[in-house]
């Protein structure tokens, strides 16, 4: 449970409860059918508070085989986080035809393996990105699109965007440019494939191993942290 030290966490909770907690997330009591009082703590009761575990890769040829399959079947979460997402639809057009490479869009994080962060990331969006990323299943890969995800790009001094994406979630492949063309993205996919096949794309486990550091970074940016520490 304790990700940072305990005092800080408690303070954190108090602050969020005081300022940012939405009414439906506040602790309250309801009356049951038999007239009994039931205490409800939405953040703890509605969400699983288990800590995620590192899922060790298989050994040897089995893992290689699986990695091949993972690399040849990249299901991308259809979530356009920034302006770079305009470059994604052409990927599936006859001209670029990403299907050739086993790339496909999936509408739900549960079924997707690849998360493309397409450009600058507003703090508001970061929260959604973290949720969606955590809801994806291990193994999962992140492709960061454009300069904004590397160093903030033209928004490097913005009050509202993050500068370095890999402070918040592990990134497997960066594709530079503002914005990168679809060809560049395809090339990025191929780089990712190589990485997977080599067994080096273990971002999901890395995230769990260094969860405390990631969480600290995330919470530094996101003031209204009104969700559980890990979104299953």
């Amino acid at each position: 449970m304790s990700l940072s030290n305990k005092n800080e966490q408690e303070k954190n909770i108090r602050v969020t409860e005081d300022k940012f907690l939405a009414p439906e997330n506040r602790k309250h009591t309801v009356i049951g059918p038999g007239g009994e009082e039931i205490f409800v703590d939405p953040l703890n009761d509605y969400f699983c508070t288990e800590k995620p575990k590192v899922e060790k890769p298989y050994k040897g040829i089995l893992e290689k085989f699986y990695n091949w399959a993972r690399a040849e079947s990249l299901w991308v979460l259809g979530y356009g986080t920034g302006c770079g997402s305009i470059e994604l639809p052409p990927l599936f057009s006859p001209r670029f035809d990403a299907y050739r490479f086993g790339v496909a869009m999936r509408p739900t994080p549960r079924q997707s393996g690849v998360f493309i962060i397409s450009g600058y990331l507003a703090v508001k969006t970061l929260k959604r990105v973290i949720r969606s990323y955590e809801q994806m299943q291990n193994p999962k890969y992140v492709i960061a699109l454009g300069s904004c995800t590397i160093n903030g790009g033209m928004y490097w001094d913005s009050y509202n965007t993050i500068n370095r994406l890999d402070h918040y979630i592990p990134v497997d492949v960066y594709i530079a440019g503002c914005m990168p063309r679809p060809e560049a993205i395809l090339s990025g996919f191929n780089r990712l494939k190589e990485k997977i096949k080599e067994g080096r794309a273990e971002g999901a486990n890395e995230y769990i191993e260094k969860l405390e550091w990631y969480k600290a970074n995330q919470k530094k940016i996101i003031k209204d942290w009104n969700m559980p520490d890990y979104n299953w």
Partner: protein
Amino acid sequence: MVSPIYIIAILLGMAFMLGLLSKSGTRIAGILTSVSLALPVYISISWFIQILSGNADAITIFTAGSVPPFSINLVMGLEEAFFTSAINILGLLGFIYLSADLKKQGVRAMALYLVLIMGLNVVVMTRDIFNLFVFMEIVTIAVAGLIYLKNDNQSKEAGFKYLVAVGIISLFFLIGIGFFYFYGGTLNIDGFIAANSVVVKGATIAIFFIIISIILELKPFPANGWALDVYQAATPGVSALISSGTATASIFVLYKLLPLGSEIWLQILTVVGAVTFLGSNFLGISQKNTNRLLGYSSIGQVGLLMMVIGFMPQLGSAFKMIFFSVFISHFLAKAGLFWLSGIVKKESITDWGILRGSNIALFLFGIFLFALVGFPPFPSFYGKWQMVMELAGTGRFIWIVIILLGSFFEGLYLFRWLGYAIKGEKSNEEKLQIPWDKIVPPFIFGISLFIAAYYANSMSVYGNTINLIPLVFILLLFVIDFLPAYIKNTITIGAMVYYAVNLYPSISDDTLRVVFAAIFLIGGILTMIAGYSVKGKRKGFFPFAVMMYFGLIGLIEAENLFQFFFAWELMTLGSYILIIRGKFSMKHAFNYMLFSLGGAYLIFLGIAMSSFGNTSLDIGIIGLSTMPGWSYTLLAIGFLTKTAALGLHIWLPGAHAEAESDVSPMVSGILLKGGVFGLIVLFLAMGGEQAASHPLLYSLGWLGAITALGGNLLAVFQEDAKRLLAYSSVANLGYILFALAFMTNIGWLSALTYSINHFLFKTLLFLAIGGVVLRVKTHNMYEMGGLIKQMPWSFIAVLIGIITLAGIPPLSGYAGKWLFYNAVITKGWYFQGVLVFFAGTIAFLYCFKLIYSVFLGQPKDRFRKVKEAPIWYLIPQFILIIGIMIFSARPDLVLKPIGALLTQSSYFPSDSLSWENVTASTNLGYWSGYKIMLVIGVMFAVLLVWLMYMSRKTQKVKQFNIVYAGERPFTPETTHFSHNMFSHYYKALGFLSAPLATRFWNITNDITHRIADGSKRLYTGNGQTYLAVIMAYIIIIYLIMF
């Protein structure tokens, strides 16, 4: 033996004596009056017993020491003894009841009371017409005086109207007497009859005036406004005297004087009685004032008695029994009801909820009402049955219709009233005050009803075929009602087990009966087990539950139509009370009763028509009916009210949904099969396969198909879990009706499979949902959700239930579907069949809605701490699940014997199912329940093990750990998709679920009530108008006669 003259002597003497007593002596006067009222009771009853047992003969008392025509003579025969006994008992009890009021008014009021009773006695006994007139006038004066007892504006007004009206009527009587003497030369009734002066033209006018006045005294509709006002305004104790006492005397006078007239008077009397019975009861339906309502009912009953007298020659030897049972019901019940009304002191029937304050009063109220409407085992049931049968024997069906219609209207307002009493609103401040002197008289009358019922039973032709032991057991349950529920429950279950064990050998050779007996008794026992979860005493539940079950069993045991109808009515009565026990059941139970009553009367009429031209009443005579079209149709519609065919279904959803949790399975899974059994009896009597092309069956087939579709479609759009199941029952009964209407071997087999299945899964589902409702205390599915965690066992039960309901292999529901397809194609009813299959797929929608909305989806905070349903609910559920499993795996165990029976009997010899070990086949297809179950079971197990291996490392998450487009759900309530789940379906097909039937019945109901209400305006309240109506009535009767 004391001479009956002493009745008069004592009463009159005491009346004079009281005049001498000073005003301060009310206490002594009260005692003296009671004694002097008790002595005539003894005298008349001893005469009655002596004459009845043959120890004494009727005697004639000659006054003034000479014989008629020179003196007045009084006769004490059997009838006189009976009626005087009735009057004197009423007098004594009425005095006890009224004593407080009378004491307030002083000794003179008591004298008046004595004079009244004396007058009534003489009116009964005298054989002199002028003496009759005199004492009728004395009675009038006494009654007018007693009406004044209440001493308020209304009673004065009513008393005046009464006095003027009766005064005028007796003046006509006096004219009659003048002519009577002029033409007959005597004042003695017997002398006049002996002189046979009817031939003299003038005597007709004398008799006209005499009889018409007596008829008017009996308040024929519509010349009875004055009487209604009196009933309403007089203090209820006096109304009881008028209703039971003076009406009794008057009806006897009519009986006594009728021999004077010619045959035509009987016909006139029949018409008058019929008009009165029907008219008065019809106008009563929109009446809300308690005493006035009783007045309408009272007048109606007297009308029925007039009809009975009018039909004297046709009824023949049964006349006495019929007259006795109808009369005694009216006499006891009406007096009792007036007395109860005096205790309750509520003007409007809507305020009668206060009656619940006293169990005994409520009990008495109930039995009085049931006795009036003519439910078994009360006397009027026997009477009405016998009367209808005798009339049917001579083909007088119009009259039967009138009797039944009148009874229906009477049932309508009486049951509305009962509904208010059992379920009406009741303020907590008000307490029902029941002094002993007010409750003893109705109590004695209530007990007397049972004694009278026993006599009516023994007098009835078929009465001795009724098994009274269950009824005694039911009474016993009333007696031990103070015990805790679990003891009574155990006793009840024990009795049912005992009954089942004893019943089995007698029906074991008839598989059909065994199946239904098993549904009724095993189902009964299982649902009673659920009753163990009820704490406290559960007053009034067990007698009626037992009544319903014994009614159902009675249907199976019935050897003749009388037993059948008796059991049918018993079942209706028991189930009505069970249904009305629900919290919001008043309206629904009322609807149920109306449809049941209407249905029962249609069945009654159907039976009557079948019996026409047949000598016996065996069930088989339905098939020998000389007007098969009528009797089949009537019986079918009657049974369909119970199976809730579309159009007749509107009572069902509410009744089943609002009933208590463990009552719903009783009335749904089990009770409905009563109607199915009725249909089976009817169809078998029609001749089985030979009747397969009967047009009635064709229309019933369509009706069944449409019912299946409509029921399922309506179920889809319900938000109330129990209502959903109720509509599903409508649909399932539609399937059964449809399959029965095939009249083929396989069709019947599928109907029976359906019946068994429906019993299994609907009882299971209602028990499971009932258990849930018990815990979460709401019926609305969208308020529930995610209960699988708290109630896993209930979830399993519902899951099994819906798989069976939907007919998904490998469970037994599929057996029904498969047989159904075969039957449809064999029979050639393709389009109806398609409709039914369409309905079958619609069933998936509500099956999913039911299990998803309740058990899956988002759990609600409110229900975090609810517990699993009570163990007593789960035990029967799992017994039923075992039943379903056995029936699914080895359907041959049940279907083989049924098939064998159907094939061997002469009804369905051809095209049967053939069995090869466990594989059934028709000439179309084949199916092996056992193997299918095996294949699917093995496969499912293998896959489960595989998946469990593959995903052994899953992380269990909580309710909001769902992907929500990067967001999180708001609250469980907004995340649970349940309310209006099938809105798109409603857009597409919602027009088919328009409540046409409800609208139709509402309009019918509305129009009926409006007409009744409008016609009621006839009673303007103006005394003068009443008089004008009386005169017009005389003129009209005169014109009719001559």
